[in-house]
């Protein structure tokens, strides 16, 4: 009976004893021996150029169609015989040598669509159909998880990425780890702000009367609790050097969530800017440099805390880019394309180079590459082999997993 209780306020234990406290709040924290497997998605928004991220090395046709964009072979970070990573992906190349990186090329599907909107829907939903369902592949997966609001989390812009949006559940999307906390006037340090936030929680705990009111009150109290746990994770964050970029800041927040042992299975961050229609080489210098620095620092952090085996990092991007460059001279770029490159990193990753090399001699009518790996087969591996979920329930039939992690 909500109305006869006074909500005590600030600790998880206080919530735990109440009828209002959901089961997951009462559960003991997980021990490290029973560590969660977590997935960190880095969405490279705009369409990463696979041929620039992983450039073929002995294909004279590339220099013909990309006279400005193709980099000198000597600058590339060779992965085996036939291709090399972009020179700014130094830390990723080192991880490849250490067998902690899987590089997949030719990733796409057989009904490419050159629109950001449609393509992103396909990647978000894990389904290639005309009709957008509004539910993402991770969102649908997440509806099986315990009803902790922190089961999945997007960090960055504060708007929920399509991949995480469930049919009925909307995981939180925060700009910072303080994003779910209730606040009073004048900012966190102002006197009275904490009083106000506490009064708000007490008021919600005392709210009752009919199911709709109680439903909202419960959701709001769960939010307050989730906000407290995120803020605690933020406060406990060890001092450490992170590169200066918004991606690095977001990955540092991801690291704090993991360090705090929060039950967050899926964490999602975004790096914008890959729609490189013009001035591509300069843009990619910066973007891939930031990606390498941020992801590199994140992996080092996981290593130091002994958690590299608990985490699988994957990149996604809605499409690769056109084979031939467009524009001229200094501002050369590429148009929207099809198959691209995807990275998987972590301690348990299936390391190596996978997928067929891009065949520049066999382009489709729009001048684009054919896919050799369906992205949904990689999703299937992430779901079934890493997260232990029923991939077919999420993706539909016909996508046997293409292993991205070690058995």
């Amino acid at each position, binding site marked *: 009976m909500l109305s006869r209780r006074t909500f005590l306020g600030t600790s998880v234990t206080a919530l735990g004893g109440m009828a209002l406290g959901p089961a997951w709040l009462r559960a003991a924290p997980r021990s490290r021996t029973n560590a969660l497997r977590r997935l960190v998605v880095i969405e490279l928004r705009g369409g990463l150029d696979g041929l620039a991220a992983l450039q073929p090395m002995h294909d004279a046709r590339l220099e013909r169609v990309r006279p400005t964009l193709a980099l000198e072979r000597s600058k590339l970070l060779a992965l085996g015989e036939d291709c090399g990573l972009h020179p700014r992906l130094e830390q990723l190349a080192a991880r490849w040598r250490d067998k902690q990186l899987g590089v997949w090329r030719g990733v796409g599907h057989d009904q490419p669509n050159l629109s950001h909107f449609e393509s992103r829907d396909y990647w978000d939903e894990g389904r290639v159909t005309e*009709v957008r369902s509004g539910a993402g592949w991770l969102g649908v997966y997440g509806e099986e998880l315990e009803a902790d609001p922190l089961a999945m989390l997007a960090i960055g812009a*504060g*708007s929920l990425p*399509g991949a995480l949006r469930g049919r009925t559940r909307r*995981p939180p999307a925060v700009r910072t780890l303080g994003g779910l906390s*209730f606040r009073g006037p004048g900012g966190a340090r102002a006197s009275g702000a904490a*009083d106000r936030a506490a*009064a708000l929680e007490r008021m919600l705990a005392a*709210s009752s009367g009919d199911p709709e009111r109680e439903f909202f009150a419960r959701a*709001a109290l769960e939010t307050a609790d989730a906000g407290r746990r995120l803020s605690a994770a933020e406060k406990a964050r060890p001092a450490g050097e992170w590169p200066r970029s918004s991606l690095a800041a977001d990955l540092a927040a991801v690291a704090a969530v993991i360090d705090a042992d929060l039950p967050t299975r899926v964490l999602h961050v975004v790096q914008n800017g890959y729609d490189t229609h013009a001035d591509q080489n300069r843009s990619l210098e910066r973007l891939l440099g930031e990606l390498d620095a941020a992801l590199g620092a994140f992996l080092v952090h996981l290593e130091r805390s002994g958690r590299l085996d608990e985490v699988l990092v994957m990149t996604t991007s809605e499409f690769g880019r056109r084979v031939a460059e467009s524009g001229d001279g200094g501002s050369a770029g590429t148009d929207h394309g099809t198959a691209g490159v995807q990275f998987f990193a972590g301690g348990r990753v299936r390391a190596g180079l996978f997928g067929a090399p891009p065949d520049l001699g066999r382009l489709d009518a729009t001048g684009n590459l054919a896919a050799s790996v369906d992205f949904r087969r990689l999703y299937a591996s992430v779901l079934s082999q890493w997260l232990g979920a029923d991939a077919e329930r999420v993706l539909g039939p016909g996508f046997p997993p293409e292993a991205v992690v070690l058995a």
Partner: protein
Amino acid sequence: MALLSAFEPGRDGTWDRARAAHLARRAGFGATPAQIDHLLELGLDAAVDSFVDWPDEEPALEREEATFGSALADLDGMQDGTQDAVARLRLQWLWRMVESAYPLREKLCLLWHDHFATAESKVLRIDLIRGQYATIQRLCGASFRELVGAIARDPAMLVYLDNRVSKKKHPNENFARELVELFTLGVNRYEQRDVAEIARVFTGWTTPDRNRGPFEFDSGDHDSNDKLVLGQSVPGRRGAAGEQEGDEVLDLLVARPECAKFIAGKLCAWFVSHVPPPELVEALAAEFVEQRYSIRETVRALLRSQAFYDPRFQFQLHKTPVEWAVGAARLIAVRNVHLLGLDQRLSRMGMRLFEPPSVAGWESGRDWAQSSQIAERFELALAYSTLAHSRREVFGAPAADFQALGTQFAGDSAALVDRLCAHLLQRELAPAARDVLVAYLDESLPLQGDESARERQSRERVRAAVHLLLCSPEFQLA
């Protein structure tokens, strides 16, 4: 009880504050006590009419809107790109929702925007987005047949659901499917072969210019063979006459009993209950047919009905983020919605106008009670509560003078809370929650010190109470 029979004050209950406030929350975005007085004075029928009979033009509002629009253009960071142009259009619409004396019109625009959901991230052209918005504004109360006909020809829709590229040789079924599933009949009220036939009917409905429109029927791309839609034959026509086939199919769809039920269900879900009783939907569907698909008259009948005023439906609708933000702004007389970053805030709350998550529109009901969205709502509640409120008139009657309230109830927290509950919630808080609020004001914000300190504190007490009441479960429900 005949659910749709007109509610007769006297026989069915009294035309009281609770019912007038209910009308204002559902047909609009809520009302202040003074506005409720006004509705009471009008009597039920005239009160309903004051919402339903919006004029085609609101010259004073439109003049102000233009001023507001040009102020927006001067805002820092607003450029001429499509994204910013759409952001401006969003703010302009939000401004209108807050300012208009005819909130039902805005609410119906919201309903039809959700129903014919179209996303600017695919359409990409501000002119098309603006065009569809204007069409919905113009026809939100018209005959549904007229509205759906205009939407079928709307360039933004032609782009969004790909009918623009649907040709005789390669009919695209995207629009045809949503036309039956989401726009007229509802899911499972048709066969896949109907979708294929309807797609053929609408081949050639396109626009010559993807960037600007307008609608054009291209008979060269039209499949002029005969079609069979829902068991009825639609004779194929050559040349310009081919366009008529589409109108025949729209006639046919709108005349189906499933369509009346589907649209009546939608109206009931928006105005009465997230799960309306089937008998009510049936009755409203009959009224919809009787009124020759007039949206305005169907809504009028609903807002006058006994069912609408049934106490079991009161405070059962979860407000969408836009309804919440607009309702709060109206009740506390916020003027400059753009200064609060309302556009970004609503986006983080999950409801970015002109960018619905899918063609099925936004979620509804309890699905809005999600952690990020709640945290964002509470942030905006705090921002609203710290504004200096204007004392201007809103929709015919003066908004509350919060400063005066603070002084009037300086020493009496309980009276202050009750007064603000009446203003913002039009109901009482749960008693235990009210106790918490009163105790908080007494203990954390007591009046003490010299006159200026007391004055500051009395203002802070009002702000605190407004903040917490906007966060209360009661304020999330309409």
